[in-house]
Each structure stands twice: as structure tokens, then as C-alpha cells.
């Protein structure tokens, strides 16, 4: 079945400029995203997994134009959001929202729950105060909070409750697309389970599309339909959640899987220990960016960047081994 994607990312690159030296006279360009191509289908959860510095957070933010792109396109329902003027972008904002990792730094500590959740309604709708209050209460109900929380400030909430408030805020304008950037990484396991269940339930009831960013592979696997594995600003493998775990094809995906500790003392897995650490994105390796750590490195990997190979339906990986 061919579906029109909700979000289409075409050859998207993002560069950060780092100033160094006396008075910042030396400029370094760091390529955080390098020519990303990606479709996000309506109603799906696309998981993005990778280690720090791989560009997963930059990807999420650039899809909402929260960081400027250097080149490429981000089409949201066919409109290139990178080319929209201020007014049109503002009109589109309610459709796409983001939830950050730490609710205590993303929520304004001086606003109570009522004002926090009402804020997007105030800026984007013309609801009267009473209507707004009713809408806020309804939203709190949807995320599992109640009227008793209305007058509380963020510091009076637990981590799980605060993340529920952040979700209610994100849902206030009935978005179609939510970027969830490590939404449970600051939470304990037992609370994480509550938030993950809530996310799955909200997706069903609201027909939401998620980009779920996390470093935790088992969590991404649990919630995602498809998974994109990122390494140094590139997507190295893209496949359905099942395929990533049953037939991981890129050596980096295999290593990530093998490094994720499992709650099973007799799992009997052979660990793949990758040498070294992720190279600096300011000076990425030549050829395949993973070649400095790859256990199967060949000569060609050092000189030539591999192209995406299609392994099965909707399954692609970027590796010379697959040629």
C-alpha cells in the first residue's frame, strides 16, 4: 500500500558553526546532519536511535524548523517548511509539536499547570478564558492528571506528572505530528512504563504520528513501527522494528543491539565490543564514517562512502558488505 508521507525529508543537511581561537576568529563547521532522506507515514511511530552526537536530536528539531537547515527540504503534507515565511510557518506550528527529555527544564517554573497547558491555546486560538479552562481540564484528563493538579507548579510535581503536563501542552492544539525527544530518559523504569503506555494510547485515540528519539534500543523497538539507526549525522539503517531486531544488517546496528544489556543473566549473547569511541563530527572519517570502529572494515570502506542498499521490503542499509 502506497501512502502519501506526512513528512518527507529530502537531502537535509544541518551545519553548526563553532567559533574557536582568539575572539572566535576561527570558524569550524560541524555537519550534524548529512544529506538525510526519510519519509514519515501518517499514523506511524518512526523511532530514531543512535549515540550522543549522531544527530538524532538535530533531526527532530530541524523537522520543526527549530534549528536552521543548510540545504535540503522538509515537506510537511507537501509544503516545504524550510521555505515558509513567518506567517505561514506560524499557521503550521500547531500541527507539529515537540516533547523534550527533561520536563523540569522545558516547563516554565513560574507558571502553574493551568497556565502551562493554556499557554499554547492563548497564543494560537481565540478561546475565551472559561473555554480555555475547560479545554485544559479535558487535556489533563487525557494524560491521566486531574483538576487537583491545576494550581501546582512544576516543582510540586513528580517527574512522571511533569512529563504528562508537557504532553498535555503538546496536545493542546490538536497536532498531527509529535517529535518525542528522549521523553522518558529522565524517568525511572516504573514511571517510564506509564508514559510509554500513555503515548501508545494517545496515538491511537488522536491518530498521531510520532518521531520517537531515544538512545535506548529496547524502548525504541517497543514503541516503533519503523526504526532509523543513526551514526555521525547519517542514517545507516532503516527498517521495520521487527527487521531491525531479527535481521540487523549494518555492523553498527548489530553492535548497538549486542551492547544493550538485557535483563537475562543467561542470554548467552556474544558481545560485540566496538573499539574506540565515536569520532568528532567536526572531522568525520573518510569513506564510510563507521570504518574506524567497524569489525569488518575493508579497504574500500576507507576511501569510498557506501550507498544505500535495499535488502528487503522497506529495509535499507548503507554498507559495502551488502554489495
Amino acid at each position, binding site marked *: 500500500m502506497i501512502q502519501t508521507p506526512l513528512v518527507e525529508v529530502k537531502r537535509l543537511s544541518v551545519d553548526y558553526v563553532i567559533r574557536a581561537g582568539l575572539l572566535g576568529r576561527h570558524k569550524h563547521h560541524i555537519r550534524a546532519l548529512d544529506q538525510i532522506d526519510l519519509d514519515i507515514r501518517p499514523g506511524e511511530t518512526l523511532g530514531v536511535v543512535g549515540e550522543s552526537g549522531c544527530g538524532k536530536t538535530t533531526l527532530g528539531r530541524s523537522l520543526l524548523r527549530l534549528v536552521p537547515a543548510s540545504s535540503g527540504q522538509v515537506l510537511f503534507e507537501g509544503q516545504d517548511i524550510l521555505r515558509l515565511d513567518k506567517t505561514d510557518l506560524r499557521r503550521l506550528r500547531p500541527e507539529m509539536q515537540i516533547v523534550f527529555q527533561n520536563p523540569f527544564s522545558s516547563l516554565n517554573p513560574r507558571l502553574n499547570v493551568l497556565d502551562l497547558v493554556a499557554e499554547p491555546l492563548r497564543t494560537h486560538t481565540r478561546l475565551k478564558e472559561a473555554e480555555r479552562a475547560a479545554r485544559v481540564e479535558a487535556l489533563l484528563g487525557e494524560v491521566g492528571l486531574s483538576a487537583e493538579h491545576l494550581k501546582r507548579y512544576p516543582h510540586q510535581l513528580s517527574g512522571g506528572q511533569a512529563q504528562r503536563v508537557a504532553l498535555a501542552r503538546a496536545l493542546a492544539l490538536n497536532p498531527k505530528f509529535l517529535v518525542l525527544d528522549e521523553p522518558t530518559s529522565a524517568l525511572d*523504569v516504573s514511571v517510564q512504563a*506509564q508514559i510509554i503506555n500513555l503515548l501508545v494510547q494517545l496515538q491511537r485515540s488522536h491518530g498521531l504520528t510520532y518521531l520517537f528519539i531515544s538512545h535506548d534500543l529496547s524502548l525504541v523497538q517497543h514503541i516503533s513501527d519503523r526504526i532509523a539507526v543513526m551514526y555521525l549525522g547519517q542514517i545507516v539503517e532503516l527498517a521495520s522494528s521487527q527487521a531491525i531486531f531479527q535481521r540487523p544488517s549494518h555492523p553498527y546496528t548489530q553492535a548497538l543491539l549486542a551492547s544493550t544489556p538485557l535483563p537475562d543473566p543467561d542470554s548467552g549473547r556474544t558481545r560485540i565490543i566496538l573499539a574506540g569511541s565515536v569520532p568528532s563530527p567536526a572531522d568525520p572519517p573518510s569513506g564510510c564514517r563507521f570504518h574506524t570502529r567497524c569489525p569488518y572494515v575493508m579497504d574500500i570502506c576507507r576511501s569510498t562512502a557506501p550507498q544505500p542498499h535495499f535488502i528487503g521490503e522497506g529495509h535499507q542499509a548503507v554498507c559495502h558488505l551488502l554489495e
Partner: protein
Amino acid sequence: MSQPLLTVENLHLAFQTPLGAAQALRGVSFSVEPGQIFGLVGETGCGKSITGRAILGLLPPTAKITAGRIVFAGQELLKLGERERHKLRGRRIAMIFQDPTTALNPVYTIGQQLTMVMKHHRMAAGQELRRRAGQLLADVGLPFPEALLKSYPHQLSGGMQQRVMIAMALSTEPDLLIADEPTTALDVTIQSQILELLVQLQRSRGITIILITHNMGIVAETCQQVAVLYAGRIVEQGQVRDIFYRPRHPYTQGLLAALPKPEQWRQPLKVIPGSAPDALQPISGCAFASRCEYVMEVCRQQQPPLFELGAHHQAACYLYHQVQERS
């Protein structure tokens, strides 16, 4: 079984806060056999880190031990004076922390920091200091140790910094290493390198390690004995296979069930309702009672002791009251 290297008995610890005393530990007891990796696992605020610090004698000024004993290699630590404890700390008991970036001093080179520790504990002198420092860096798997000795912490990646911390901890040849969330700040591929290193050190040097973590996967893959901490008490302890294949305390069962599993794709995860109790309020009965699906009348009234369930497997839960009486 051999004599335990460390025994913690009925340890009570409270923090003085403007709102009153917060009970962080409410009777923690466990013992660690020599040569083991002992996992101390629990969620935020359960008391796992402060237990580690209490053993080392590195408590913040607001924390007071109100009862209990800590016996290390036959010495009762809480009866020692500050001078004696200082001699043990870093020498026979060493510790590594979650964030190596803040644990290393940014203005000294790696070599200066490593030799400082050894000089302080009179492990070596002169040329020997430098040679040993280089050897230690090689032992923890760092390349080019000579060059590294001259580097500053910011020139190293997080994983390398944590290896330096481990080298520093090993420099005094301690008997016990307390590793407090040693990989939480690191990426998974680096985490597996560091865990592998700890396992190797345990095997090759016979060092005893207390691994403090919130990650059940890490416990399963590295520890032999495990104690699960909840609200300042141990609710279950046993061999790693007991804890993962035969968990008996409803909290341990809940923690394991809440983890996402590959075969349960998109199915609702099991949730432990509610949240951990407020440390400022006194707890009568079992601290988990308000969240427990099997709660009984007795659970709200009396604190359950640890019941024996098998060889070295114990759970603090009245569900097993009769199991023990029968056996």
C-alpha cells in the same frame, strides 16, 4: 562459604532538611563475599548511592548515621576515627562515580592526578611512580599511556575519562571497589567496554566490586549477587539467577515486568502504580504496601523482615511468611 569482605548491618541514615529528618536508609543489611561483583539496584531515591558513600565514609554534612554497623575486613568502620578511615579510603576501599568529567580535576594532567593518589598512599616514589601510572593506564585498556599521562581530562572522551578513573581507583590496589552508576553518563557501546573491563578486573585481580545501578540489564550481565533496594530497605536479595528468573518480592517482579521486551511489541507495559513514599513521613509496615497488588492487612501494620526462600535468597514480604515456617 568464605568470610564476607564487607557486612552492612541494620544501617539507618537520615538527612537533616528544613522540613525535618528525611529517612534515607531504614535498616539496610547485606554482606559481600570477596571476589564478587555485588549489584545494588533500585530507582531514584532508594538509597543506593548513599549506601555506597556511607561505606566509604564520604557523607555530606547533613547526613547522619543513626544506627547500624559496617564491618570491612574485620574492622568496624563506624567506630574508627577520621584518621583511620582516611587511611582506608582510596587505599583499601576505592570508588568511581557516574560522571568522570566532574570527578577528575580539570587543571591537573592525568599523570599528576594518578601519581598524586599513589604518592599520598605511599604506594611508590620517584621514577617508579611514573612507570606504574603508565602501566595502570595500559591495564585499563588505554592506548598510548605515555602521551596520556601528559594530557588534561578535557582532551579525553567520556569513556577514556572513566577508564582513567578506574585506573586511579586501582592504583592503590584496593580490596573493594564501589562503582556508582559508572556507565550511566556513557553511550551504550562505550558502556559495554567499561562493563567488560570491570568484569575482567574482577577475574584477573580478584577485586570485589559493589556495582550501584538502576539498570536491571547491567545487573543481569555483570553481577553474581544482587540486592534490590526500595525506600531505604533491601526488599529482596539473592544470586543473580534467583532475582531474574525467580523474583519473589512484588517490587522486584514489577521492576522486571516494566521493562520493554522484544516479544511484547506495542503491548501495554506492566506498570507499578503510584510512586515511592515520601522520606519525610514515617512509614509503618511495608514501604511498598500502598503500591502492592497483593497487599494484606499485616503489611500496613508491621515491617516485614527478610524471609529465607532458598540458599542465599531472601525477600522482605509477608507473602513468604508461611513458606519459611513450613520449611
